[in-house]
C-alpha cells in the first residue's frame, strides 16, 4: 500500500515533519495509533459500517453519454458528489474522527477553504459527539456563506481568520497554532494530503477508497482499465485518493488539474506543481508558490478549495517521477465547464471539479472514441451556485 514511502514517511525527498517541537510527540502518537488502527479489524469494521450506512458508499460510477459524445471519448464519472455532505471530504473526516475517539481526544480542530472539509468535519463531530472548531479565512466565509451556516447548524464553532490572504493557507496556519496549544486534548483533522507526516499518507489512505471502488467499477463496466484518470488538485486529496489505486497500472495516465486562476503567466493562480519550487509550508516539503526570498506567494483561484499555494508531497513526487502529469485550467474555463456538465449531464459539479471537467473539454481530440476517461467528480456545485450567478458568466 505504501511502496512510494521511505522509512521516514517521505515521498522521495518530499514530506517530512517540519513543525514546532511541541507537536512532535503528538505526531508520534498519531503515527502509532494510525498504524495500529488500520490493522485493527474492529476499527476497520466500524469505519466500513459508517461509510456504507451513513456516507452512502460505494459511490456510483455514472456513464456520461452526452459529455462523452461532446469529448469524443468514453467518460465515466466517479460520483463523490453523491456522498453525504456532497463531496469526498467526508471519507477522511469520518475516519479521522473515529481515530480521534480511539486516541481519547474529544476536541476536534479543522481548517477549511471551500467549506466542504469543515462541513464534513462538523458532520462527523455531530454524529460522534465531539467538540468541533473550524478555522476559515474571512474571504472564504464570504465566498462560501452557505457552508458556514451548515457548519454552525451542526454545532461547530467557525472562527474567522483575518491574517494574511484570509483564505485556506491562513486558516491552516491558524489551525496549526490552535493545535500547538491544545495537542494534549485535541486532534487536528487536516482536510487534505498535506501537513506533516503521517497526514499525507493517512489522508491518502482514507481517500484511496475512491480509486479502489472506481477501478473495480470501471473493470466491471467496460472490462478494461481507463486510459486516463483525471482529478482536480488543490492540496490534492481527491486526486491522490483517485490516483492511488492506479499508480501501479503503468498504462493508465494520471492527470491532475491545478487552478490557473487568471492565467499561469499572470501571478494570480494556484498552480504550485507547475509554477512553484520545492519549499516548506505547514509541516512538509513540497512544491510551493514562493518568492525568491522563501516567502509564500499568495495563491488565487475562483474556487476556494483550490486556492492554496502548496500541494501534497506525494503529488510532488509523482510529478518529479513523471508518473502523474499536472496541467491547469483558468477561472474562466472552470466557469464554462461548471455550466457544461450541468447542461449535458444534469450534474452541477463543484467549481473545484469544474477545473477537471474543463481540462477534459479542452483536450477533445486526444482520445479514441472507445478510450475510457475516468473523472473524479469530487463534489457537487450547490455551494457555488450563488457565486457563479454573481459572476454573470452563465445566465441562471
Amino acid at each position: 500500500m505504501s511502496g512510494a514511502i521511505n522509512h521516514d514517511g517521505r515521498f522521495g525527498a518530499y514530506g517530512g515533519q517540519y513543525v514546532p517541537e511541541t507537536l512532535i510527540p503528538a505526531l508520534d502518537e498519531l503515527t502509532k495509533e494510525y498504524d495500529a488502527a488500520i490493522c485493527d479489524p474492529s476499527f476497520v469494521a466500524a469505519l466500513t459500517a459508517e461509510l456504507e450506512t451513513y456516507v452512502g458508499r460505494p459511490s456510483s460510477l455514472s456513464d456520461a453519454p452526452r459529455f462523452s459524445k461532446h469529448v469524443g471519448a468514453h467518460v465515466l464519472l466517479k460520483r463523490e458528489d453523491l456522498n453525504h455532505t456532497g463531496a469526498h471530504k467526508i471519507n477522511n473526516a469520518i475516519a479521522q474522527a473515529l481515530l480521534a475517539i480511539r486516541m481519547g481526544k474529544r476536541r476536534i480542530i479543522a481548517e477549511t477553504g471551500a467549506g466542504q472539509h469543515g462541513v464534513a468535519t462538523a458532520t462527523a463531530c455531530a454524529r460522534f459527539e465531539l467538540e468541533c472548531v473550524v478555522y476559515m479565512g474571512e474571504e472564504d466565509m464570504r465566498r462560501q456563506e452557505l457552508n458556514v451556516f451548515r457548519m454552525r447548524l451542526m454545532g461547530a464553532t467557525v472562527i474567522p481568520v483575518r491574517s494574511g490572504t484570509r483564505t485556506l493557507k491562513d486558516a491552516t496556519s491558524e489551525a496549526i497554532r490552535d493545535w500547538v496549544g491544545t495537542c494534549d486534548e485535541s486532534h487536528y483533522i487536516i482536510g487534505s494530503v498535506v501537513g506533516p507526516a503521517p497526514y499525507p499518507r493517512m489522508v491518502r489512505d482514507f481517500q484511496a477508497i475512491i480509486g479502489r471502488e472506481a477501478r473495480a467499477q470501471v473493470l466491471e463496466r467496460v472490462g478494461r482499465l481507463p486510459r486516463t484518470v483525471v482529478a482536480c488538485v488543490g492540496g490534492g486529496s481527491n486526486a491522490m485518493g483517485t490516483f492511488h489505486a492506479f499508480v501501479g497500472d503503468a498504462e493508465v495516465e494520471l492527470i491532475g488539474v491545478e487552478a490557473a486562476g487568471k492565467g499561469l503567466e499572470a501571478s494570480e493562480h494556484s498552480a504550485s506543481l507547475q509554477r512553484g519550487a520545492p519549499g516548506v509550508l505547514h509541516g512538509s516539503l513540497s512544491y510551493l508558490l514562493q518568492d525568491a526570498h522563501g516567502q509564500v506567494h499568495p495563491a488565487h483561484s475562483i474556487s476556494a478549495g483550490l486556492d492554496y499555494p502548496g500541494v501534497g508531497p506525494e503529488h510532488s513526487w509523482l510529478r518529479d517521477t513523471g508518473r502523474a502529469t499536472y496541467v491547469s485550467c483558468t477561472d474562466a474555463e472552470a466557469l464554462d465547464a461548471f455550466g457544461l456538465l450541468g447542461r449535458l449531464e444534469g450534474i452541477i459539479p463543484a467549481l473545484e471539479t469544474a477545473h477537471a471537467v474543463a481540462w477534459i473539454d479542452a483536450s477533445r481530440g486526444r482520445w479514441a472514441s472507445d478510450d475510457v476517461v475516468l473523472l473524479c467528480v469530487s463534489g457537487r456545485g450547490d455551494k457555488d451556485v450563488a457565486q457563479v450567478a454573481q459572476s454573470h458568466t452563465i445566465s441562471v
Partner: protein
Amino acid sequence: MLSERFAALRASNRRALVCYVTAGHPDPGASLALVQGLADAGADVIELGVPFSDPVADGPVIQQSSQLALDAGMTLDRALELGARAKPDVPLVLFSYLNPLLAAGSDVLTRAHDAGIAGLLVTDLPVGSDPDRERWIGESPLSFVRLVAPTTPTERMASIASHGGGFVYLISRLGVTGARSELPPDLPATIHRLRSVCELPICVGFGVSSPEQARAVGALADGVVVGSALVTAAGRSVDDALGFVRALRAEMDRA
C-alpha cells in the same frame, strides 16, 4: 561566542537576558537602533527574528511585526546586513523558519557567520526531522540552538541536548509565542527534567512578559527569553523597548 557569554554569566552568578526582536520592525531604521541599544540596556543575547509570511509558531504580536517588516522589504540577507551594521557587543542568534533559509542558498550560513551571527535557531526543524539539513547547520560555524517543549519526553530531551549548541531554548508552555500573565505551574518540573539530561545552559521563553516573571524564571533556569512583550514595546518606540529591557535587567539582578 555564546558559550563564552554563558560561562561569564555563570562565573558572576547572573542569568542571561535573551531579547527577541523582529528584524525590520517597526521599520528598518528603528530596528537597527534597537539592536544597537539592546546590549547597553542589559541584553546578554539578541535573537534576530527573520520575518516569515506564515509563522505557525507565533502568536498575533510576532505575526504582525513579521508582516510589517516584510511589507517594508525585510529579507534574510537584509537581516544579516542589519546585524553586521549594528555589531552589538553581545552574541546575535538568528531566529528563522526553515523556508527563508532554504531559499537563501547553501552558503547562507557562511554569510551569516561573516555578518557576525553567532547562532541559529530554526522554529520548524525539530531534531531528527531532516538529518541532511540538520547536518548542514550543525557543521556550519554557527551554534545550532535547539528547542525543547513541555511535551518532549525526557529521553528525547537528552537527544536534543546532545545535538544542540550554545544553549537550549525551553518553550515554557503549549501554544504559540505571546505574553501571558502567569507562568505555567509545571515549569519547574519541566526544567528539572531537562536539567537532568542537559549540560547546555537552559533559557526559557514563550509567555515571559514582565520583570517579575523574568526574575521568577531566572531563579529556575540559566536564562530568560523575552519576545512578544518586547516587540509590543518596540512597536511604540525604541525608547520604550530599551526602557523595558532595563526594567527586566534590574529586576533579574536585584539581590
